């Protein structure tokens, strides 16, 4: 298999959100009328320039970690790569279908987990037979157990995100975009999902991971993109180097690392005597 095959090319991407009802306009009937009469055009629409000129290439088999502070444009970038947000300028090119997994990507809240699994599989283009075959594996992987026949609104946040991850990860996607979806899972699920991401990488896909848990990025990813204010600060395969700089820039204490392997050394908390 060709390892140098690019899967995602992002070329000078700009994404702009238009937010309705932003400040200034109090949203009264009078101001609305003025707007309609053309005296105040688009008074309450504010533009948010979320991504400001981002370019990078991700190759087959890459697991790309996207790090940066809140509001730096990480989630927006993922949604643009998934083709869910049209770019204002520039372009996103992908090879194949992209699936986005986000924290608030609940499927259909008032339906049971079981129906969500079936609908999710069918929406991803599986046949009825494939769906039936995958069903036990998905429920097993999600670990929601008996809750599978309850509506998803009865699920805890963690259970919901586990089921969503299980659905999206059941099909080997060409490009899997994971946006903090693992953050709410418990330790056991993290181990499982970590293993599944590695498997998907082997299936010649590309995985993007947005996470504030930097250790998770370190363990999972072979490339990192560090974003601030809608731009890339730096990117590359020096995962540990970039993460250490990011920690330093955020004002965190430096991570102690093994000089040879680069692995984190976890200081033991001494027992009180």
């Amino acid at each position, binding site marked *: 298999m060709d390892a140098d095959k*690019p899967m995602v*090319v*992002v*070329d*000078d991407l*700009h994404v*702009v959100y238009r937010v*309705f009802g932003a400040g200034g306009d109090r949203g009264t009937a009078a101001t609305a009328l003025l707007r309609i009469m053309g005296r105040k055009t688009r008074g309450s629409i504010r533009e948010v*320039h979320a991504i*400001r000129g981002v*370019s*990078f*290439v991700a190759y087959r088999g890459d697991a790309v970690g996207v790090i940066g502070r809140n509001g730096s444009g990480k989630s927006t970038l993922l949604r*643009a*790569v*998934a*083709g*869910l*947000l*049209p770019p*204002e*300028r520039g*372009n*996103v*090119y992908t*090879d194949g*279908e992209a*699936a*986005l*997994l*986000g924290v*608030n*990507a*609940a*499927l259909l809240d008032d*339906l049971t987990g079981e*129906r969500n699994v079936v*609908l*999710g599989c*069918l*929406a991803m*283009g599986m046949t009825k037979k494939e769906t039936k075959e995958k069903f036990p594996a998905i429920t097993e992987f999600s670990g929601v157990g008996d809750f599978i026949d309850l509506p998803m609104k009865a699920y805890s946040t963690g259970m919901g995100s586990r089921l*969503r991850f299980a659905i*999206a990860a059941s099909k080997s996607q060409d490009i899997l975009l994971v946006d903090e979806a693992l953050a709410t899972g418990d330790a056991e699920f993290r181990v499982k999902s970590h293993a599944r991401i590695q498997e998907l990488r082997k299936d010649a896909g590309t995985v993007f991971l947005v996470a504030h848990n930097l250790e998770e990025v370190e363990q999972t990813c072979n*490339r990192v993109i*560090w974003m*601030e*204010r*809608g*731009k890339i*600060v*730096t*990117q*590359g*395969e020096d995962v540990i*180097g*970039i993460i250490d*700089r990011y920690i*330093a*820039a955020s004002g965190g204490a430096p991570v102690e690392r093994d000089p040879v392997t680069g692995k984190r050394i976890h200081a033991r908390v001494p027992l009180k005597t």
Partner: protein
Amino acid sequence: MSNDRRLSAPGQLQTGDDFATSGIVTAELPDVPLAEFARAHGLRVAAERPQVVRYLKHLWLRRHFIMAFATARNIALYTEARLGQLWQVLTPLLNAGVYFLVFGVLLHVSRGIPDYLGFLVTGVFVFNFTSRAFIASSTVVTESLPLIRALRFPRAALPLAYVMIEFEQMLLSMAVLAVILVCTGEPITWYWLLAIPVLLLQTIFCVGVGLASARLGANVNDYSQLLPFLMRTWMYLSGVLYNISTLDIGPRYVAILQINPAAIYITLMREALMASQRQSQPGAQPYNALKCATWKHFKAAPYLDWSAYCRPITDPNHYWFYAIAWALLAIVLGFFFFWRAEAQYGRG
């Protein structure tokens, strides 16, 4: 969204944003322009909407999804109610009951119409299908936002599923209608089979308007607020409660009202199911000025059926032509209208 309001190039990173990144090997971008690089490796623009044929193919591949989505929504709709699925039958019955009480018993709109109960209930059920297709589809994009943002699939599957739900509801309503008609003494004849093509044509029409309505509802926030009023106006103009040909607004306006899509499907359905409608429609008998004038004057038994001796304002034989034309027009325009914005749904 238009691209004509482009933004000026973003500024440099401000001084406070300078991060210490020296000593890190930054990944090199290819030497060639990225657009060329992407094309050379066979990559496609992510947010691009597929060509019509490919789009229809994808839609066909998702047909099981459409059915499953429709069933699931339908079940979710009634799980909170104690009577559950029974509401699917109760809703049309109550609807018909209210209209019959107000317009049939209290206001006597029924003057001049034989078998008014069947006439009214057929009209209410058929119109409801059209109006529900408009109203339900207008919220489909906002309601399914989580699904749209999580998975890639042809978005037209969603309004299609919503219209499927209304179609299932319509089938149940038709069963209720058949019972009502038999109870009011309507004979079961071969003409009843004509209800099938009428329903099919109306369903095609509804899919078309559902697609258009879904895009409007997603783009224009005020649309779903306005819609119920538009629908009510349309209902009063379409002869659901009365016979359009009795209106005193001049033959030209009567003809316009008669060929509007809602009225066309209602009229065809009434003629398929009700013997009195087949026999009393203007033009069903050779023209007779005296009998026509008598009907216009009395509009009561025993002259109820004599409207048949009046001249038709719109030739009833053309009704089928209009029914087909409206269905095709709606599905073609509705599909293209929805498809053109395919990449925009879900941006919120």
